[in-house]
């Protein structure tokens, strides 16, 4: 079991590292990244080292997560150096979770050797689909075969492997999605994340949507796909533990649950967001700005935000409810120092009476219908009517 937790509310025991590199930018992606610039990799490592050196002591942590971008866009020596930089500063406790995100095509025995040597025990693979046509629509550089090859290497060697899957692409049918789910299950990952495709401003997809070259997937189709994923995956023994996340028992992502339960975490790299001592900071989103500033001895931080206690409590409730197990009212009230009615008036009761939330013995959670429209629920909790 990985979820051995030593944290309390004030201690920061998780670390996120953003690796902003990708071979190219996918047409649906609006993440902080810089495509096709391997020339910046070394400068990035220097900057990360410098940013990290500003922390006072060696700290003990429970989770370490390298996300992107594509961390595996770095070559093996560079990854080796990146991991070493962190291991000098952070002491992973026994049973800690050490994750990296990876692109299927990048999984080689060389890479595997590096990550194993450093103790990576969870790999999240950007599979997206097993349908080559769909992968092409998504602008991915891999095909189904590459996922199979990667899984052959990963599954025997890594404790927990997760696959990311996307649904609701242009012209996709429920059958395509069903096939994707089945092929994923067959590869025996411990964890699955399913994401409905969204059209974000600033992406190539957004422009195509505006110009009419792409059409939004019908809401009903999307709903069927999402519900099908839930029913099918839980039917074969996965636990649906957060809006988009499914895990075999005991394999939930410990690191991500830190976010959703309002706990503290460090973060490094361009665009990385940290939450330490109740303060949220985001590093410069531009990779070049980040590199220039950090290497010139300046702060990496671009934005800073400190929420009032009541707003923190509201946020805590919202992200807590995105976890399917929901929130224990008593625990929450004790933790945040407000009662639920102080947090959001009678919204909870109203949502319950509409069948969107259920309250079982002091434990509130989304119902299925609530889950499906949950983005319409959160605004009501974050800015309650009489608040």
């Amino acid at each position, binding site marked *: 079991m990985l979820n051995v937790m030593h944290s309390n509310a004030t201690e920061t025991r998780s670390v*996120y590292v*953003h690796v902003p590199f990708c071979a190219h930018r996918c047409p649906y992606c609006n993440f*902080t990244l810089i495509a096709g610039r391997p020339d910046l990799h070394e400068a990035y490592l220097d900057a990360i080292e410098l940013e990290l050196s500003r922390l006072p002591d060696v700290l003990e942590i429970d989770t370490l997560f390298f*996300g992107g971008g594509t961390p595996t866009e770095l070559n093996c020596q560079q990854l080796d150096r990146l991991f070493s930089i962190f291991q000098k500063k952070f002491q992973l406790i026994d049973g800690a979770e050490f994750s990296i995100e990876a692109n299927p095509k990048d999984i080689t025995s060389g890479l595997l050797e590096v990550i194993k040597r450093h103790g990576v025990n969870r790999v999240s693979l950007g599979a997206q689909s097993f349908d080559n046509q769909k992968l092409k629509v998504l602008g991915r550089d891999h095909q189904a075969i590459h996922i199979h090859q990667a899984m052959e290497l990963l599954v025997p060697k890594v404790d927990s492997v997760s696959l990311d899957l996307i649904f609701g692409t242009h012209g996709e049918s429920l059958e395509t999605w069903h096939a994707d789910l089945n092929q994923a299950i067959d590869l025996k990952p411990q964890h699955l994340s*399913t*994401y*409905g495709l*969204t059209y974000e401003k600033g992406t190539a997809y957004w422009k195509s949507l505006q110009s009419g070259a792409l059409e939004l997937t019908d*809401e*009903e189709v*999307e*709903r069927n796909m*999402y519900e099908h994923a839930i029913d099918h995956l839980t039917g074969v023994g996965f636990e649906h533990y957060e*809006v*988009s996340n499914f895990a075999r028992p005991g394999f939930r992502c410990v690191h*991500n649950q830190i*976010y*959703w339960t309002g706990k503290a*975490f460090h*973060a490094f790299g361009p*665009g*990385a*967001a*940290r*939450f330490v001592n109740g303060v*949220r900071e*985001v590093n410069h989103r531009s990779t070049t700005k980040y590199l220039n500033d950090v290497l010139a001895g300046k702060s990496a931080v671009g934005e800073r*935000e400190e929420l009032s206690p009541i707003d923190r409590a509201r*946020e805590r409730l*919202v*992200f807590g409810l*995105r976890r399917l197990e929901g929130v224990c009212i008593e625990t929450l009230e004790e933790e945040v120092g407000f009662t639920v009615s102080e947090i959001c008036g009678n919204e909870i009761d*109203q949502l319950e009476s*509409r069948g*969107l939330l259920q309250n079982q013995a002091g434990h509130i959670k989304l119902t299925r219908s609530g*889950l*499906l*429209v*949950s*983005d*319409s*629920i*959160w*605004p*009501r909790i*974050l*800015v309650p*009517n009489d608040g």
Partner: protein
Amino acid sequence: MNLKNIRNFCIIAHIDHGKSTLADRLLEYTGTVTKREMKEQLLDDMELERERGITIKARTVSMQYKHGNESYELNLIDTPGHVDFQYEVSRSLACGEGALLLVDAFQGIEAQTVANAYNAMDQELHIIPVINKIDLTHARVDEIVEEIEQTLMMGEDEIQKVSAKAGLGIDELLDAVIGAIPPPEGDVDEPLQAMVFDSHYDEYRGVITYVRVMNGTIKKGQKIRFIGTESNHEVLELGQFAPQQRPCDELHAGQVGYLICNIKSLELVNIGDTVSTANNSAEPLEGYQPPKRMVYCGLYPSDGQDFKELRDALERLAINDPSFEFEPETSDALGFGFRCGFLGLLHMEIVQQRLEQESDIDLVQTAPNVTYELTLRNGETKEIHRPQEVPDSGDIEEFRQPIVKVNFVVPADYIGAVMKLCQDRRGVQKATEYLSPTRTMITYELPLAEVIYDLHDKLKSATRGYGTMDYEVIGYFPADLVRMDILVNGKKVDALSVICDRNDADRRGRAVCKKLKEEIDRHMFEVAVQAAIGSRVIARETVRALRKNVTAKCYGGDISRKRKLWAKQREGKKRMKSIGSVDIPQKAFMAVLDTGAEKR
């Protein structure tokens, strides 16, 4: 000044035909204002008027002019140029003996010009037609002369041709004013009768009353009485406009000027009222009507806390505009606000704009409605200013609505389009007159309610901008009217009720429901929008419930962004009005104006 050396006249014109420019030129040519002092459109001193290029409030000016060996006093009484101010126009006309009828050398005669010309003729004013902008490249002076001859039965020799902008023909025009307009009649020795034709409020001096003395003399220090409002005051100052206030000791019969009497409220000074002496008052002059508001709407602060601010702003505005009235009202849907009465739709628009400009207040406005009259079964008569006041149909003996006479002047090609427009609105055709081979005047009687909302816009689009219209209220007539209510998820939204013709209710109800369906965002639950008369539902639309609305990715970096996004969505919703947990946007409150005309 001898009566025979006084000329009192006004300028009547369609918007944009150059009235203000001509007035400026007259001031300049008579030496009343030097060229250096000349600001363009000197007489329109409200900022809003300048912005819109139209005259709303009447202004007046006395010009001293040497003609031959004689000195003349020429009093220009400026008139408002919009149909909402018809009554004010008629009072201004009553104060003069002549009128310059200004016609654009390209646009020609417009509906409003005709209406005002007939109005002036009814009051036996001498009319001098003036064709303006004769220096325009596209000027079609000969055709316009023909139109004037045809419409007003006047000869070409009576017509003046000028360019106010270039200063062409102004001297000749002044000659004609002196030669053709008769001097005022009136007896200095009769008891005092002076007509109030305008007023405005000065922060330091109180109400400035504009008068034309008909008979008798008015002096400084005199005790006077406003006969209509039955209030007595002492004249602290009187004088003429030149164009600024120039005090003098007395104004006698035939003269035009102002009075300052330390009056603190414009409500006491009504246009058309008669000023006489406090004791032994004379008979009131004819034609006085208390201000009549034809259009009402609800104004609400867009978020609850601004109620007091809105009230203060309305109070400030009312000081300057006695024709606007307001009283507090409550709506289940909108909370606390005010029912406001206006002379017409333009007046409403102006007040709203001034509120937003001068007071920085965001308003929620309900759909405007006209004033109706009711006779109840028990014999009682009621005026209805808002749909909510309509009682059960069983209690109503007779429901009456205001009917207006509308004159349209349109190019001959568009007669069919205009007739269709009017028939769709239950219009009754009264007359057709050919002004020239290409232009026609069509007269219809229409319910005012059908006119005020969008007829002007519809006319413009049906005639590619060439048609013009003008209307006047001819009275209240019985009609088969009903109140149509709108229900949102079974709950009646009082602010959405409208009064409409029974025969029109089904179509109207369908149009409104359809429009509301477009305006109301989808919710987590189904929203039913229904139109009903009494308990009978006549139309229904359903705003489908959201089927899927869930963000997939939400990790460390997304949390703050998502929270802000969701909070913002909620703030946006707060500017809406929540009725039975359905969020209704402000725009929806105007949706009831959708007459479904496109589907007719």
